[in-house]
């Protein structure tokens, strides 16, 4: 009897349920991020097309993606080469990439083959994906029925007339979920937030010639910028970023950290305490194969608040750093599947992090040393120069590099010698509180401006009294 039952039941079911992809995977990612995934596919398309020229300064020129949305539909259209029919039939629409063999020689961002599908499932229940390549044009439809049917794991592909000159992919999603529809209706200013995200995360790629339009508005790039004086590179002293470059196991690394703006004023420090809006350029930006995966991070992930580096504070608002990882095998890069985070356990990342911390500490302690305003504090008021890690590394004279012997990377580093105060007098802070009306009266008396910064008003009172005592 027992034997009979065993024979009837057969093997257990271990194949995936569609709900897993449609309802669960989509929870791991924010809408904004899944839209960036769609842009990643455009970029990977360009990389395939321009394989040979990827090291040029502007490899993405002429390529673009146009995103439009409203409360009923979402569309993204690119001119980045399209998905070859063979790839579509075999793997582009599978939920997850079956092998590692796709594009072995191109530094793509896509690895797991889930981005496009996850983005579609995140937005709605109906989609049409059409693609034009030199070879042919076709479309693939995803319907609500297909999404609900756990047995059906194939999608119909229909050949179509080629409509445009250019080759590329167009994805339209309808039957939007109500939350997504609300965001797309712009009731909560989603459009501006998305444009800003694309500016930050795609800044590097846009600067290399790619164009992104959101509802017909061209997205402006945000790139990295540093304050540097040529002198600092030549003499070794002055304001210049800390630079590190190296290559290990097929991944190249370029790192730069320094000041990108002037030190914060008292008002700014106060403002951040009362929760006023801020721009968030300070912190670390991590780039993997041109794609920003972490933007302006100020947490432990990038070394703040660990191993002797202080926690992020408005005092450090002038410090920004960039790390650029590049590899033809995207799986070697220290990035998570959502491509919006760092794999904190990656050995490669942990060794690079040591240099991130070393560089960062130079600048945090600089802001400590110059906390006290003094006449000989070097002015950081010079505008920062927009530049890539590569161009900064190229500016460092050959004889100023030093070899890193300790770490596994064995790279080269440039450690600037930042100016220190000549005489380290003992200073103390004085804090006190007085009625506003009195502060305003003194402000008017000394500066002809009742709204002058209270800190400066207090300072001048002190100096005046001191002058009187000393005669």
């Amino acid at each position: 009897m027992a034997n009979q039952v065993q024979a009837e039941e057969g093997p257990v079911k271990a194949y995936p349920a569609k709900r897993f992809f449609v309802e669960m995977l989509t929870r791991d990612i924010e809408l904004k991020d899944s839209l960036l995934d769609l842009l990643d596919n455009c970029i990977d398309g360009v990389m395939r097309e321009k394989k040979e020229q990827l090291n040029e300064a502007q490899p993405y020129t002429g390529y673009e993606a146009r995103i439009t949305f409203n409360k009923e539909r979402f569309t993204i259209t690119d001119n980045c080469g399209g998905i070859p029919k063979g790839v579509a039939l075999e793997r582009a629409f599978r939920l997850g990439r079956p092998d590692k063999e796709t594009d072995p020689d191109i530094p793509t961002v896509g690895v797991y083959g889930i981005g496009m599908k996850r983005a579609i499932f995140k937005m709605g229940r109906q989609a049409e994906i059409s693609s034009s390549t030199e070879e042919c044009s076709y479309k693939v439809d995803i319907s609500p029925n297909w999404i609900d049917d756990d047995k059906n794991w194939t999608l119909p592909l229909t050949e179509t007339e080629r409509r445009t000159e250019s080759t590329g992919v167009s994805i339209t999603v309808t039957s939007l979920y109500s939350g997504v529809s609300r965001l797309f209706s712009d009731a909560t200013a989603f459009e501006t937030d998305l444009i800003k995200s694309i500016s930050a995360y795609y800044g590097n790629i846009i600067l290399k010639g790619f164009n992104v339009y959101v509802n017909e508005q061209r997205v402006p790039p945000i790139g990295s910028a540093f304050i540097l004086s040529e002198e600092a590179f030549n003499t070794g002293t002055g304001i210049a970023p800390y630079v590190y470059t190296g290559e290990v196991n097929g991944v190249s690394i370029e790192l730069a950290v320094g000041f990108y703006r002037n030190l914060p004023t008292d008002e700014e420090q106060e403002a951040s305490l009362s929760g006023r809006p801020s721009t968030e350029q300070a912190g670390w930006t991590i780039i993997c194969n041109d794609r920003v995966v972490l933007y302006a991070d100020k947490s432990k992930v990038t070394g703040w608040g660990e191993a002797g580096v202080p926690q992020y504070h408005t005092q450090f608002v002038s410090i920004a750093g960039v790390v650029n990882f590049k590899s033809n095998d995207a799986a070697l890069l220290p990035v998570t599947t959502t491509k919006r985070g760092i794999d904190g356990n990656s050995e490669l990342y942990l060794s690079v992090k040591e240099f991130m911390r070393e560089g960062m500490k130079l600048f945090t302690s600089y802001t400590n040393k110059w906390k006290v305003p003094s006449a000989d504090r070097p002015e950081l008021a010079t505008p920062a120069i927009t530049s890539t890690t590569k161009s900064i590394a190229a500016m460092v004279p050959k004889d100023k590099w030093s070899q890193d012997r300790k770490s596994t990377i064995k790279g080269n580093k440039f450690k600037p010698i930042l100016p220190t105060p000549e005489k380290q007098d003992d200073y103390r802070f004085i804090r006190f509180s007085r009625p506003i009306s009195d502060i305003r009266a003194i402000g008017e008396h000394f500066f002809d401006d009742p709204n002058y910064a209270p800190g400066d008003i207090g300072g001048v009172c002190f100096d005046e009294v001191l002058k009187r005592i000393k005669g």
Partner: protein
Amino acid sequence: MSAGGNIPYHLRQNKAIERNLFIDLLSRVGRYFNISDFQYIGFGGPFLEDFKHLHSSLRISNMISLEMNGNVFSRQQFNKPSSCITLRKESSADFLNSYDFDAADNLIVWFDYVTTDIGEQLSELQQLVEKLSHGDIFKVTVNASPTYLGHADAGREILALRAETARTRLGDYAPAHITPDDVNTRNYPTLLLKALINAAKHGLAGDSSLTLEPLACFAYTDGQQMLTFCGVLLNADERNLFFEKTRLRSWPFYSDCTNEPKSISVPVLSLKERVHVESMLPGASADEIIAELAYYVGNDLKTAQAEMSNFISFYRMFPWYSRVVI
């Protein structure tokens, strides 16, 4: 607020026009909501002018005034024109934290800022909208003089540097792209309007039943250029009914706030001039009036024409000021 404590609000004519437009707007919204049951919250200033006005023209009888300057607060206690005003010695930021919005009736809130701390004001606007509920009306007035962005001595770089400062000050609420053109005196109100709408919309992220319906925005200059923005929170499915009943879309001063704010500055006329110009109205155009006077009133002809056109729109709406000896 403290800096504005001693400005003679009652003598600022553009402000007076703007206040009248607000009453006009509220009475139209009153065709849809029972506006006299709403509670009004605002910065009354030493004379509580707005409160008098709202009480007499719309029968609003539950009002709160916020004031953080102790001396002005004492003046308010002396000047308080009606028993239905509660005076609170509190800043708008503290009010947002302490007030029980859940227990309140429908609200009309007007934060009429006089300081130039736009960053704080934007974040207060977001907090305010987060706390408001269906039917509530809010209005904010902010300083829109780009000179406060600084860099007065920067020479030809001034606009580029101002744009940079604007980006920092507006922070998360800044539009994605700020060009040097956006921070000249003419365009700065439009930039701030976008930031205000952005801040208000961020306040709605947590409540999917509500949408922001902008109703009006004006720019005017009584010494300082100011921008004022007013909106109401509606359910998405009642929009059409709201506009049908209020007929706001045919109100000449209605704006969905997607374009630049309407300027409502009028020329500063002498008594004799005003009597003369009004005798030609309604009927005469700005050009005809200027031709008839044989001179223009203002810094240059173009501004004078624009302001005279505003005068033609608003002459019925703003008071006569003159010296009274008691």
